[in-house]
């Protein structure tokens, strides 16, 4: 599969090369959490099939302070990002706990924060060092109105990232964040500059989410009808015994997969897992919520193949509408996404192999 371009709005900072690789705490440890590019989770020197984009070192000249900048450290990330506090940071606990004494432990998975000495992390002396936040806030607002807010957002982040030691509010907020489940977290506890950054990120994420799946939610939901049909065709190729068993039991894909498509698996997995999964979707490109999701759903179904093939109609339907995913963590989601990526690689450019049967 060819390397894909980075997301159209790269400030979201998802590194397409990293989604299927394990997180090493060493990487996290060096992360400057306010740089989105910090979610480069690839181990150094890793040369896995998942690395779709070649390692690139950013050697940008130190530009004006308002320019979005790459991470200061040599980065394998091909996307330049400035907006921090994206979902990746907010959630992204890894099933691989930090080892050793990483300077920035991701307590309960919250990897934002850190930098007790932010100045050290910005050799270019950029962005946040010594900036006054109220000034920056005004600039952010202007930038949002004008539509070209990326540089200004960088400053918003600058404003939002005074050192923890000097910002008791933020320290408090992070304490709260660290101990809270995303499902129940109250965003009003966060400082305003952080909320502003989150708002911008949220808007981008929602736009990306909806762009690809509008026809899921129009009259008669043709997008979902099509996706379910294609999913059935796909499963017919990747797991013949399962497909035949479902057919024999008169189970129709629409009877269970409709919900998987309609709610993007939100009813099947926890919010935390959903965030991890959608994070990959957001990075995979504008079509991921309609296309890649198909492969995820197929992998999700095939995962239970052995069990399902021993069940009858009632057992299958009941099982599929209350799947045992309550204990799922990042590891299970990452395995699922990996499998989906394999299916996507094999089948996505081989449509005629499974359509028109």
């Amino acid at each position: 599969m060819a390397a894909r371009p980075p997301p159209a709005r790269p400030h979201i900072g998802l590194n397409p090369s990293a989604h299927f690789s394990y997180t090493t705490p060493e990487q996290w440890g060096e992360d400057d959490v306010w740089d989105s590019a910090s979610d480069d989770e690839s181990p150094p020197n890793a040369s896995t099939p998942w690395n779709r984009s070649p390692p690139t070192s950013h050697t940008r000249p130190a530009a004006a302070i308002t320019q979005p900048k790459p991470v200061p450290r040599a980065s394998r990330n091909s996307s330049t990002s400035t907006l921090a506090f994206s979902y990746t940071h907010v959630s992204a606990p890894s099933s691989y706990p930090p080892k050793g004494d990483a300077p920035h432990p991701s307590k309960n998975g919250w990897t934002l924060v850190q930098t007790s000495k932010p100045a050290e992390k910005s050799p270019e002396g950029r962005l946040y060092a010594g900036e006054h936040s109220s000034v920056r806030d005004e600039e952010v607002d202007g930038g949002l109105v004008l539509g070209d807010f990326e540089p200004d957002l960088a400053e918003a982040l600058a404003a939002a990232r005074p050192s923890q030691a000097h910002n008791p509010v933020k320290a408090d907020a992070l304490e709260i964040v660290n101990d809270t489940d995303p499902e129940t977290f109250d965003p009003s506890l966060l400082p305003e500059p952080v909320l502003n950054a989150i708002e911008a990120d949220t808007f981008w994420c929602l736009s990306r989410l909806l762009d690809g799946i509008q026809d899921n939610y129009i009259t008669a939901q043709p997008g979902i009808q099509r996706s379910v049909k294609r999913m059935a065709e796909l499963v017919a190729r990747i797991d013949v015994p399962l497909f035949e068993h479902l057919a024999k039991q008169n189970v129709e894909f629409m009877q269970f997969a409709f919900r998987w498509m309609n709610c993007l698996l939100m009813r099947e997995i926890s919010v935390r897992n959903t965030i991890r999964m959608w994070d990959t979707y957001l990075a995979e490109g504008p079509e991921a919520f309609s296309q890649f999701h198909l492969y995820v759903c197929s992998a999700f179904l095939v995962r239970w193949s052995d069990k399902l093939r021993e069940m009858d109609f009632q057992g299958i339907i009941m099982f599929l509408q209350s799947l045992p995913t309550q204990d799922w963590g990042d590891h299970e989601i990452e395995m699922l996404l990996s499998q989906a990526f394999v299916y996507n690689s094999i089948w996505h450019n081989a449509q005629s192999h499974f359509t028109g049967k």
Partner: protein
Amino acid sequence: MSKQLQFKLVLLGESAVGKSSLVLRFVKDQFDDYRESTIGAAFLTQTVTLDDGTVVKFEIWDTAGQERYKSLAPMYYRNANCAVVVYDITQSASLEKARNWIRELQRQADPSIIIALCGNKSDLAARRQVSQEEAQKYAEEEGLMWAETSAKTGEGVSEIFTAIAKKLPTTAAPSSRAGAGGRTGAAGGRSGVDLNRQQNAVSTNEPCNC
């Protein structure tokens, strides 16, 4: 040895009239103050034992009431032996919706389908907008069973399902899917033929060039 019968039942009706709550009460004898809206449809089973010892097993498809899911409904009422069309006694518009569902069932569903009209939320009689007389009169005109229920208190819930069970044919082989003896064999055989045909089609009419 008592008789075991299996029937497919579908719930239809406007959004938020209490279809899922009704089924939850019937199947688990529970009630949730907050329920997520149903997406597509949910599947449950429950058995009813009649006075003569006959055990009737219901395979229940609890459909989503929101208008956008309407196109899915035929998949669920197709081959259904009985339908419970639910309205909310505090919302007269929901009875109108129920009438539409009943018309659709009479036109499209199996002609032998047994339809029960069910006015839910009878615990909210103080806010009643649909009188018992009006609903009952309509049900009689259309030849439907009718009852009022409260999923919250449980009033009338098991009664209406038991009444349906009694009205269902006790001899005819239910047209249910898997598990219903002879039909399973037939279905299995048919799908086998389909699969063979598919394989032949692939080998003779391969859509790709490799």
